[in-house]
């Protein structure tokens, strides 16, 4: 049975405002992310092969002391609050400066969830309900587009 095209991910997919290349610097990624106000940017090779996602939480994490950078609540160090640290803006900037020229591929998340254009729309909705991020749409290893919560809301409100 053929699925209704409107029940598939393809129907709400959009073109990302920017795609990073693996060798772009972290500074460029930060500037792009700030200027477009997006929660994550996809990274792909020049020929369109998908590499991974760079979430903004990763950039914030890089400004913190290393022992506090963890995204997993089950991690044994997750209970450390670090409330005693009195870092100034300058110290945080120094940490970012130290990695600013790193290529983004060093910091991307290759394990971030991806969806295919033929995946059910509901799968995407369930995911975006839990996580505030951007889902890359990948087909045959190539980046086709992204799905954001804005794409979903625009369609839900019949704005698009």
């Amino acid at each position: 049975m053929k699925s209704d095209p409107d029940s598939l991910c393809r129907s709400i997919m959009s073109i990302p405002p920017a795609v990073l290349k693996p060798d772009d610097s972290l500074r460029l990624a930060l500037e792009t992310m700030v200027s477009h106000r997006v929660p994550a940017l996809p990274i792909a090779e020049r020929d369109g092969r998908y590499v991974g996602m760079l979430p903004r939480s990763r950039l914030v994490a890089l400004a913190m002391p290393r022992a506090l950078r963890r995204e997993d609540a089950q991690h044994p160090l997750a209970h450390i609050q670090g409330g005693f640290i009195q870092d100034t803006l300058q110290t945080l900037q120094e940490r970012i400066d130290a990695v600013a020229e790193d290529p983004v591929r060093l910091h991307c998340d290759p394990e971030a969830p991806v969806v295919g254009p033929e995946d059910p729309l509901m799968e995407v909705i369930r995911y975006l309900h839990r996580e505030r991020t951007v889902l890359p749409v990948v087909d045959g290893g190539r980046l086709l587009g992204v799905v954001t919560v804005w794409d979903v809301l625009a369609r839900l409100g019949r704005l698009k």
Partner: protein
Amino acid sequence: MIPATAPAEILGMSPLWLATLLMIATYGVIISERLNRSIVALLGAMLMIMLGLLTQEQAVAGIDFNTIGLLVGMMIIVSITRKCGVFEYLAIWSAKLVRASPAGILAMLAVVTAVVSAFLDNVTTVLLVVPVTLIITEALKVNPYPFLFSQILASNIGGTATLIGDPPNILIGGQVGLSFNDFVYHLTPVIVVVLAVHIVSMHLIWGRKMLSSAELRARVMAFNERDAITDARLLKLAGAVLALVIVLFVLARPLGLDSGTIGMAGAALLMMLDNLGKSAEEQSESVVKVFNEVEWITIFFFIGLFIVIAGVEHAGLLRLLADQLLAATGGDFATTGFSILWASAVLSAIVDNIPFVATMIPLIKSMAPAFGGAEGLLPLWWCLSLGACLGGNGTLIGASANLTVAGIAERNGIPFRFGTYTRVAFPLMLVHVAICHVYLWWRYF
């Protein structure tokens, strides 16, 4: 039907041989680390019953619930206490006490780790101290490796000082009926000396060469340790309960209380205080969280081991081994003691010390007639404890705290290799055991 006595032959083998084979197979699979150790111990235990070497009743009687009660009770108390941030407070406070000088911090954090570890289990201690250490060393821009290395050794050294510091001590204390005070009176003095030697060796190997600029030190001096306390009410409650538990441990004998009862009573009291005034829903959520933090792998591992050991003991193997050991040492008390000390140390550096200690306890107990009754065995328990606990420092796989620190270090981009660690740690461990040898010889033999 449950057989009243062990049959003469099972599967064509004498019960003694079968029990021995089963124990060797169980320990072999535990050492191979192919299967989680709690599963292996439970399988071995159930086979002891199913093959008719033990009845279910005998197996249950073999489980030392005093030890289990103390372990679970302390795990609950610690899981609640650590939430309030007091250990982060201690680490920061001690670093500021030495004006954030790297060499001073290296020494102070070893002391803090050892003292905390004397009251909490070693893995919990390093999980609390290591993250703060990483934050401090990053701020000072010094190599964190010496600090982490020193804390591994300090946690195992400090844990040896008391009844509740390290699982081998909990096992020995629980099974032999030794009190908190016995451990403090007999072990703490030599542990203080070993810790001092450890701190001096860390200074000579690394501390004296460490440098950091005044500007970076000012960064650490700016840390506000008071902000580390996340829950002041909980801190007061947990502090009061922990103090009460220690007072009860000290008075255990005149009060006629066993350590398992004290640990469990402390856990129940602290859970009650922590949940007063909460809604029924919040209470079940908080209690489930606390029970989830009990290390069930360790608990079931102990339960399985107790049954396996009850099986070999019942079959007469331990009696036989004790006779062999006595024959080998010519029945000489000091030789027996020192053999236990050194064998425990070297074995504990290579394999898990818990099965070893759990097997040695009934074995040493059965030597009582040769050495003037149960009272006469006292020095042998200290040999076993010092060897098994300090031996764990010898290699990276010698104790769970070692692997925990190595794991955190690797995740934070600090290489922590078996060979690099062992090259420095093993000789230091031998020095520590040698100090204990002299102490035991001077005091007991």
